[in-house]
């Protein structure tokens, strides 16, 4: 059980997804092509940026299913407003800002819904009750919950998406140094939280 909770040294994570962020020049080319209605460019942009948008939404919402919906929504909105993207090279940052805003809106709506549900005496269904979200996934989400939004965004973009600090810095509007700092702190905190949980779990198992 402890093995499941361990903070893995995982070089598999980034290799597994096989998706690398497009470089700014290539992104700009794709954005211009998409503006002209090129279907291939649309697919390439979705392939490259759906996961980062998901990571940003997850850092706000802390629920994978909600984050997936918001990520899709953010991409659709971005494509609708593509003509207003004046700097195609900075498409990533522009898209992630849209994703963050939409995630915050979704979070606000969710809180209102949950408050109403509590008021009505309706039972609020916790994500922990869904069978697909138990186990390591749930523990990771709980640990992520202890991070600041920026730490969460940085650690997800770096460790889930495999982005470099330069890419993270450009997309989030922070310096490379700040990105490193946030990543360092986030990883240390997550390791501490997951290790504590792991040992508690192990004691329960005995």
């Amino acid at each position, binding site marked *: 059980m402890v093995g499941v909770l361990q903070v*893995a040294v995982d070089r598999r994570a980034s290799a597994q997804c096989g998706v690398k962020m497009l470089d700014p020049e290539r992104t700009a080319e794709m954005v211009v092509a998409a503006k002209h209605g090129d279907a291939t460019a649309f697919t390439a942009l979705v392939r490259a940026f759906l996961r980062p948008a998901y990571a940003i939404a997850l850092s706000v919402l802390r629920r994978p299913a909600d984050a997936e919906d918001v990520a899709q929504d953010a991409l659709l909105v971005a*494509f609708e407003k593509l003509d207003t993207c004046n700097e195609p090279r900075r498409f990533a940052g522009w898209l992630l800002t849209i994703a963050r805003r939409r995630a915050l809106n979704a979070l606000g709506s969710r809180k209102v819904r949950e408050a109403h549900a509590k008021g009505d005496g309706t039972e609020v269904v916790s994500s922990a009750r869904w069978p697909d979200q138990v186990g390591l996934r749930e523990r990771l989400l709980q640990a992520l919950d202890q991070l600041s939004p920026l730490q969460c965004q940085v650690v997800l973009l770096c460790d889930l998406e495999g982005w470099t600090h330069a890419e993270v810095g450009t997309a989030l509007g922070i310096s490379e140094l700040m990105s490193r700092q946030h990543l360092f702190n986030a990883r240390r905190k997550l390791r501490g939280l997951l290790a504590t949980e792991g040992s508690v779990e192990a004691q329960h198992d005995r």
Partner: protein
Amino acid sequence: MTDEKIDFSALDPAQDPSRWERLIESVAQRALAGRARPNRLLLQLSTWARPALALAAGLAIAIWCAVLATGGRGTTTTETHTDPVVALATWAMNDAIPTTVDPVVVLGGSNGSK
């Protein structure tokens, strides 16, 4: 060791590659459809732009011809006689001296409050 990656694969939405691929295709299709809609509207507008412009030009010519046919008179004689303001302005501009009867005819029964 804080330079080692955290394993977030449990949160990876692409764990099921075929499902993820379908999702990508679906988002791309919807995005493309969303972009195509305004283009169709623009196409419609551009298709109708020329006939609309021709119609507007035709109307303008017709109105212009009608104005020319009426002799381009700004006001009719009747109006001159019936509208005190026009009559007084005409006298003033032409330095015309109205007869004693003219103001009475122009002003008619009005008490000057018009």
